[in-house]
């Protein structure tokens, strides 16, 4: 992995909300085509780290480089960065007043300035990728949670992102709907998409993840390949964490 192009480089990243220090110095490189799965107990800063990556949170100190450019410096075009970084949320956050197709089209038209026809064609192609082409003119409220999340993935995909961030994408879903979303994510990973995934799905991390990162108290406790992480964890905290899940 290390010989591939670095998409994201975080250097000594700190983030605090007032008195509360959430991230306490994170150093992590994310390479092109890599699937990085971030694990950790709740409140360890997983989601905050992800949100820092597309500047939904302002970092307190430290640096984030995106494709070699410091995005924590002043005067960065935030919108341009975000158009290259897809994000999938726990609560889907589809736009309820637009049908699936329009949800996927709107940012293409407004941000990438694609023509309506081009945006529509691209949207339908991406809806097809997530298996939602047949529901293109359904409103989010007419779709199940799993279907909504698949549309949200298509919405991110349609921007031709360089990386997609998944913020607990399956946590809000009923158990029987988790599978369809994970399946889409798996196919995406196999297609070579760079992904940063915050999740609690151990099986997914084991099967799909290239690199597993365990965050604890805002620090990287352990970082290893998926095989090493699950079969030969080094840190006691990792062992406890995995033990908790295997019960």
């Amino acid at each position, binding site marked *: 992995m290390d010989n591939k192009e670095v998409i994201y480089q975080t250097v000594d990243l700190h983030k605090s909300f007032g008195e509360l220090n959430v991230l306490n110095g994170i150093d992590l490189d994310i390479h092109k085509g890599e699937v990085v799965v971030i694990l950790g107990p709740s409140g360890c800063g997983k989601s905050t780290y992800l949100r820092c990556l597309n500047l939904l949170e302002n970092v307190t100190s430290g640096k984030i480089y995106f494709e070699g450019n410091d995005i924590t410096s002043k005067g960065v075009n935030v919108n341009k*960065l975000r158009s290259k*970084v897809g994000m999938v949320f726990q609560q889907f956050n589809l736009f309820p*007043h637009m049908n699936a197709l329009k949800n996927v089209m709107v940012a293409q038209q407004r941000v990438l300035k694609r023509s309506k026809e081009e945006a529509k064609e691209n949207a339908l192609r991406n809806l097809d990728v997530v298996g939602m*082409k047949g529901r293109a003119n359904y409103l989010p409220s007419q779709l199940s949670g799993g279907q909504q999340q698949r549309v949200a993935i298509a919405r991110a995909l349609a921007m031709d992102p360089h990386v997609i961030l998944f913020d607990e994408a399956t946590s809000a879903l009923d158990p029987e709907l988790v599978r369809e979303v994970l*399946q889409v994510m798996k196919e995406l990973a196999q297609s070579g998409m760079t992904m940063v995934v915050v999740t609690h799905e151990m099986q997914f991390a084991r099967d799909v993840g290239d690199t597993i990162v365990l965050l604890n108290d805002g620090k990287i406790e352990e970082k290893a390949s998926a095989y090493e992480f699950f079969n030969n964890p080094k840190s006691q905290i990792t062992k406890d964490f995995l033990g908790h899940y295997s019960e």
Partner: protein
Amino acid sequence: MGYASAIKSALFKLILVLLAIALASGIFGSYASCFVAEALSTQRFSARPNSDNGNDVLGGEKTRINWEFQANESAPITGFTLVFPEGTTFNEEDASVTLMDDSGTTPGENDHLKRVPIQTVYSIDNLDFSAKFLNEVSADAYLEIRVQNVIFPQNGGELMFKASVNLANGDIVEVRDLLQINVKSFSFADKLAKDLSEQDWVKAWNSNDFLRLFFNPPVLVSSFPVVMQGFFTALALVLCAYPCAIPLGLLLALMRMSKLRLIRAIGSIYVNIIRGTPFFLQLYVAFFGLPLAGVQIPSFILGFIMLFLNSGAYLCEIFRAGIQSIPDGQTEASRSLGMSSFQTMFFIIIPQTIRRVIPTMTNEFILLYKDTSLLAAVGVMEVVMYAKTIVASTGSITPYIVAAFFYLIITIPLASLVGVLERKLDVSKAANNQVNVLDENDISVNVKDESDIDGSIAPSIALGQTQVTLQEDKNLQNDGAKNG
């Protein structure tokens, strides 16, 4: 109609006065020798308004004629003949001639306040109403002649009278003054009201004080078209002001949520002042203050401006609450796609807000419509103002009931619409059934062709899903059918 006739009658009076002055001056002027000297100059020639709105002289209804003139002859007047227009009925009962003299309260100026009745013998020959004075009248007398119980023809018109006076020296001099009365035709409503008032059941109905006062059928009928004019004014006001207030409210809402403190402060101050003071007071300040400051704005326009400014502040708070009720996730999702804050606001947040606040906005429309009634206090001719005028002339409260009708005709349907909208919003929360406002014509996807897609992922789930979705579709169609 109110304005037009008022202006018309004012103009008419002005012309009469000017004519009188011109004629009077003509007598002493260089043209005096060219004319047969004028016997008199008419100061006033009018009929008492007999319509329910108190402004118009109607045909077919009893009225009273007033003719005041200043005699100019060297010889005293001994009598007169007034020729009524064709189709007019009248009688000599209660006719009177009065000498109006100086009461002496204002020295050096004849104020005509002292009234001296003059004994008169009347005779009627077809349309000629003749009078012969039994008392002697001085040559420069100021006389008032009244004829009661005059009924003009029903179809009205600008009716011309002719007159002549008899002088003590035996001469009969034609009066050259323009003796004209503008008579309104008897409207359908007035006729209906008149017919109603002669019905036995109406008399029985009106024998009850409460019913007569509040639900007097003839007044109800005759005041309806008059109050309706105010209804159109009020409707026009609110239909102009409200759509303009929506962008103002939106602008103020965005100002109040601005990152810039100054902009936020301006928005807050405006909204707090408008919402914190009574609309009534604001109207007084604008309608009485601006003219004093030398700013002259027609009352309809100023009424529109005040409603617009007032409603903008209330809509601001509605929009602000609406925008803040949209989950942060929407903004985050939009921004994470690279959309600017402006794009997020206009393509994502505001469209959702509008849908949420439509019931509240409809309520604000109802409130604004009712608030037009306050403009009566500053002289805008709207519903209450018209009703008030008729109440003043008839003494019946019924026109106010008619006015209430013109408010309810708007507010009740809108209130029930709010109920429907609120129920719909509730349903969309519960069953997540929302209405799609975007046109779906441009989507050429076969909705049913999805078995292969779902099948590859989760066949068992997909089957259940399809059933659920079809059921939802049915619900939506049912909703559509009901609403359609």
